[in-house]
């Protein structure tokens, strides 16, 4: 009791205030984390955990029933034994051909719609429509287009370009390029919007000054427009390179890797091994290889297409 009264000799209000203040401070410090908690838990479980656990599982043997067993590089050695994996990586790299096509196409589209002609909003919307169409329906529609009895062959025959039907998806030399064209068709509008935003941010007086100086349309495009949108070109090149490396849905819906494994891509191989064959370690090893390629390509992009500062 004496000790308590001794304590009470010290200013008691101050003591209580201290405790209250500490609790208040603690609550104030906790508050932001309570707001952040749902997002952090979900990101942790479905975005960060897959990267960490996936990187670990790639080096194990794992079949759902027993705990994963460390096997070192065995899964990667298995990959090297599989000729289909080589086809997949080769196709993923071949798919990069789409990157310059997307940049060129999207810049042309953006320039074409960067004005206030009557009806221009309609055209912008029309070019964007494929982007807001579900990939499954895109796949079904293009399946009809590419069918040997399908629309594209019918049009070409009508134009007297061909006599015999072309096997757009059934010819193993053509199939990958046919799917690439669909990826292009469905992606252009998205990149067009990015370029359009960047074009509209170019100060008007820059263009006007160049006109006064007698610069031709062509000169203005190369000397003003292109340098001004260079950051967007870099961004779009990186984004389209990465998405070309990770093409999966179009393949899954249109060809399932066929004919004769000619349209396997890196990520479709991972899907096929994981979700169809339930060989998750091999699938994850394959997806790690794809990720390494992605990192390398992103690095190359930043290295070589750097916006020029002056």
């Amino acid at each position: 009791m004496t000790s308590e009264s001794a304590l009470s000799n010290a200013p008691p209000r101050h003591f209580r205030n201290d405790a209250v203040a500490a609790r208040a401070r603690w609550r104030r410090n906790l508050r932001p984390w309570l707001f952040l908690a749902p997002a952090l838990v979900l990101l942790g479980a479905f975005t960060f955990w897959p990267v960490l656990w996936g990187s670990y599982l790639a080096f194990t043997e794992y079949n759902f029933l027993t705990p994963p067993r460390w096997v070192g590089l065995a899964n990667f050695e298995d990959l090297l034994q599989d000729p289909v994996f080589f086809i997949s990586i080769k196709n993923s790299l071949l798919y990069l051909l789409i990157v310059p096509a997307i940049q060129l196409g999207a810049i042309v589209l953006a320039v074409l719609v960067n004005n206030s002609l009557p009806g221009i909003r309609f055209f912008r919307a029309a070019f964007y429509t494929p982007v807001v169409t579900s990939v499954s329906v895109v796949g079904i529609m293009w399946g009809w287009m590419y069918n040997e009895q399908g629309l594209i062959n019918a049009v070409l025959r009508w134009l007297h370009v061909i006599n015999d039907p072309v096997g757009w998806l059934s010819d193993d030399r053509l199939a990958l390029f046919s799917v690439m064209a669909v990826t292009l068709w469905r992606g252009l509008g998205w990149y067009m919007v990015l370029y359009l935003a960047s074009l509209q941010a170019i100060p008007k007086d820059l263009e006007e000054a160049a006109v006064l100086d007698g610069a031709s349309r062509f000169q203005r495009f190369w000397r003003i427009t292109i340098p001004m949108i260079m950051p967007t070109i870099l961004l779009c090149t990186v984004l389209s390179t990465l998405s070309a490396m990770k093409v999966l849905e179009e393949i899954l819906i249109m060809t399932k890797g066929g004919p004769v494994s000619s349209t396997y891509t890196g990520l479709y191989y991972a899907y096929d091994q994981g979700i169809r064959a339930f060989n998750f370690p091999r699938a994850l090893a394959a997806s790690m290889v794809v990720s390494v390629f992605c990192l390398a390509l992103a690095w190359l992009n930043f290295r070589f297409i750097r916006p020029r500062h002056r």
Partner: protein
Amino acid sequence: MSLRTLLHYAMLIAIALVCAFPFLWTLAVAVGTEGNVFAFPSSFLPRKPSLDNFIEVFRAIDLASYYWNSIWITTWTVVWTVLVCSLAAYPLARYRFRGRAAVFTLILATLMLPTEVNFLVNFITSAQLGLVNTHLGVILPTLAGAIGIFMMKNAFEEIPQDLLDAARADGASELYIFFRVMLPLALPQIGALVIMTTVTTWNNFLWPSVVLTKSELMPLAVGILELSGTFGSSTRVIAAGAILTIAPALIVFFFTQRFFMRGMEGAVK
């Protein structure tokens, strides 16, 4: 009209036709009931037009339940995305606290990570949590998106500090401020987030197709492939199904275009 303008329009129309070609043909085939569907150009002019194919598709597959699943999944995804993203954005926009920069970097990092391959491990996780073949399993992994969080963060940063101070001086709790001051003032950005989430969720294919194996749980974007895989479904019926699948997203898009054109800008910055 000058020759240059004419040429400009000619190019715009030509490209629009390439973009629209598969859509126009699918629509014409779905509406028509007679003739060779692949004949060119006659298949673009539907003969004996009727809505029979649109009725038939409801008989051929359980389109009504696909529709319901899509509506259910989209509605809850939108509601929870807005809530989760704005809750996370509020402290990032308005509080100073230790770890803020780290959280910010962490969320930014999700845009750099190769998340396209996450579906493999997420399938394992979902299986262990009992989320396979549940709509919750479809919804959960998509809720906390970096783009959504950044959109809401930008919105909250624009709100004047005076309003918050006044509310706090009146003794309002932080939750009250969040729901009654911040959210109402961020309505335009919430609208943009709602529209973009609606369209992406409606169209989402890969993850729902991985986590749902039972046909009766599938959303339209996945179920429509069941129809095209069904032996004996006619092209016209599948075309009608395809039109019904994409129509809602396209209608939303056409009425809210500017959100897409501006929303992307925000995402890039």
